[in-house]
């Protein structure tokens, strides 16, 4: 590969230890073509989305990745062309006959290098699909391209590590069960001090009705999100637990390999059966919500439980929650995987209107939201510079809402990315930020219940 990819790539021995087969560099384009040939017979999206683009360019100005980096290959249609040109050359009649005239191109290692570089600068936010007259979803092409790269043994180290951690400990951060229990006890103490009542964070409690799948970051960096969830379950008298075997809403497999995603969802299914849960509630994680909601049925067969996002659960029970209005002006950021991909659009707004005195909207918002620039598993440190560019559009949007007291960023990746972006663009220290459940937790009047 001629271009040096912007991220560290896992070593051959490591990916092989994880069960991936590694293809030597010279054979990679050929193997990749075999895989494209196989996948085009399995996924209609791949075929139709590669075959219907008219290259009108409407997606260019709608993509935060292109707007932020101003790199041609981050223009969604151009990113897709990295795939489409190859596809045309080997799988379409016009490409075979007309070649370059029709935009077909031979596949070589250089193009494959571009795949790694640019398919990992797409946040899979689907804003291009929203603005494409045909509904061509570059995120879908990105997902498939990443899957093919992984099958060749080309996996960013960051994603590889989270998969290893997930396999070993049941969460991406590699937190062992003992530390999870410690952390839960610590949070219970904190809540006891604050409210004077015993609010539990049960781990692996058998015969639970509700399985709560937090983001593992909620145990250490986004503690307030966990406290909010625990308080809400307490007030509602929910019989709930957190499974240590899948202590992670984030499903990084979705971001690089279908089989890793499937394994994650399988763990979810097993945990629900073992602990007896009939309802699974997913915590604040954007892509994890998409992976669970949109893929579990198809990948893992029908599941016997109900599946809700914690915002949906909270919204359903809103009338039962003793919420008092916090005096603050709060702005809501719509994570892309909630708004466009997961159907979580009005629920957070209904919840916020009860919890805070003033809710301000960003422009654009809801399904037209711009991604934070950290999505799709590119939170690695070595990509920080690129990530800051990817976050430029979000920073401008946040700046434009003016004075606020609190910025609601209800997704673990947004929670990691947006503070860094704001710092980079000199917008930090002006307001607090955190999840939506954080606000619910603070707004819940526990003593009265």
């Amino acid at each position: 590969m001629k271009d040096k990819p912007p991220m560290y790539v896992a070593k051959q021995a490591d990916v092989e230890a994880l069960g991936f087969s590694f293809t030597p560099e010279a054979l990679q384009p050929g193997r990749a073509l075999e895989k494209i040939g196989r996948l085009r017979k399995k996924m209609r999206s791949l075929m139709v989305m590669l075959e219907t683009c008219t290259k009108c360019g409407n997606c260019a100005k709608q993509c935060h990745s292109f707007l932020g980096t101003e790199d041609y290959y981050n223009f969604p249609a151009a990113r897709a062309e990295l795939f489409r040109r190859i596809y045309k050359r080997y799988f379409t009649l016009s490409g075979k006959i007309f070649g370059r005239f029709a935009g077909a191109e031979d596949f070589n290692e250089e193009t494959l290098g571009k795949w790694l570089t640019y398919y990992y600068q797409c946040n899979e936010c689907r804003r291009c699909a929203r603005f494409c007259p045909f509904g061509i979803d570059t995120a879908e092409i990105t997902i498939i391209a990443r899957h093919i790269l992984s099958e060749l043994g080309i996996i960013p180290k960051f994603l590889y590590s989270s998969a290893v951690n997930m396999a070993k400990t049941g969460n991406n951060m590699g937190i062992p069960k003992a530390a999870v229990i410690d952390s839960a006890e610590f949070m219970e103490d904190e809540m006891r001090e604050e409210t004077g009542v015993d609010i539990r964070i049960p781990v692996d409690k058998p015969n639970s009705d509700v399985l709560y799948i937090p983001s593992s970051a909620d145990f250490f960096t986004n503690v307030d999100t966990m406290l909010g969830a625990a308080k809400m379950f307490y007030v509602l008298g929910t019989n709930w637990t957190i499974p240590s075997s899948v202590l992670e809403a984030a499903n990084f497999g979705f971001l690089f390999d279908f089989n890793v995603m499937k394994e994650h969802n399988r763990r979810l299914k097993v945990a629900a059966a073992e602990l007896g849960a009939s309802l699974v509630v997913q915590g604040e994680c954007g892509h994890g919500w998409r992976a669970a909601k949109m893929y579990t049925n198809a990948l893992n067969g029908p599941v016997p439980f109900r599946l809700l996002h914690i915002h949906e659960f909270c919204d359903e029970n809103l009338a039962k929650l003793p919420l008092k209005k916090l005096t603050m002006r709060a702005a809501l950021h719509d994570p892309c995987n909630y708004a466009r991909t997961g159907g979580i659009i009005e629920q957070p707004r209904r919840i916020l209107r009860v919890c805070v005195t003033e809710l301000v909207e960003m422009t654009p918002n809801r399904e037209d939201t711009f991604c934070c620039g950290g999505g799709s598993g590119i939170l690695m440190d070595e990509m920080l510079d690129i990530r800051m560019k990817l976050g430029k559009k979000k920073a401008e949007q946040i700046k434009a809402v003016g004075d606020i007291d609190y910025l609601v960023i209800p997704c673990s990746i947004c929670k990691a990315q947006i503070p860094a972006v704001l710092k980079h663009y000199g917008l930090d220290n002006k307001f607090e930020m955190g999840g939506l459940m954080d606000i619910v937790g603070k707004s819940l009047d526990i003593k009265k219940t």
Partner: protein
Amino acid sequence: MLFFIGQVLPYIAAAVFLVGTCLRVAGWLRVPVPFPLTLFPAASTNAGRVLAISREILFFDSLRRGEKWLWLWSWLMHIALVMVIVGHIAGIYYLAKQFTLVGFSAEASASLSAWLGTIFGAVFFVSLLALFYRRMTIPEVKRLSDPADYFDLGLLLAIVVTGMYMRLVSGADLPAVRAYIAGLFTLHPVPIPQDWLFISHFTLVNILLLYFPFSKLIHLAGIFVNQAMITQPPPVYPPRRVNPTPAGSSRSVSFGEGGRRL
């Protein structure tokens, strides 16, 4: 040569267009959609879904939300194209007397037919030029464009230029054209009118039809298949009433190569 252009090529073009397009679409529909690609907010009823797709197809909603000029020119171009096609069918079949069906006099109908044809032809021409200009001037779109993208626009421009020349300058012998087209449809060959402008106009359209199924023009069919995918209803949990399956078992779509330890 004239025999080939007049009596053979039209049938080849029509067959390639129809069969090619159908095969292409059938090829897409044969492939499963393993995961719902719902783009929210999604309609919850079939009627809502049809409405959403119709708005997209009739008004280009997504484009309108984006770049306004692109929306305007491409929408005008497509509307004009549809009107021109409808106008050709009606004008040739009724020899420009189609508006007598709604009470106009024969002269008024011919005049209205000519005016409408001129207006939509002009709109079609201008919007094609605008799209051509846009493709050449926006840097990232220019870089993205292949010769084929200019060829498509050029071919349509050549068709509209020859057509408009007949309409505005040289005129066309409608009854002769009608007799010829009728001959093609009824399989009773009538020689093609010996008007080199008509012959080029007609041949260019045949080339377009021949080229259609293999080019990006297939987006005419792709939009339906694609929009149907992204407006799919989201999955529900639990999916209907299911018998509890043993933990860990899975009816599965397999994407792996086997032997994966994860």
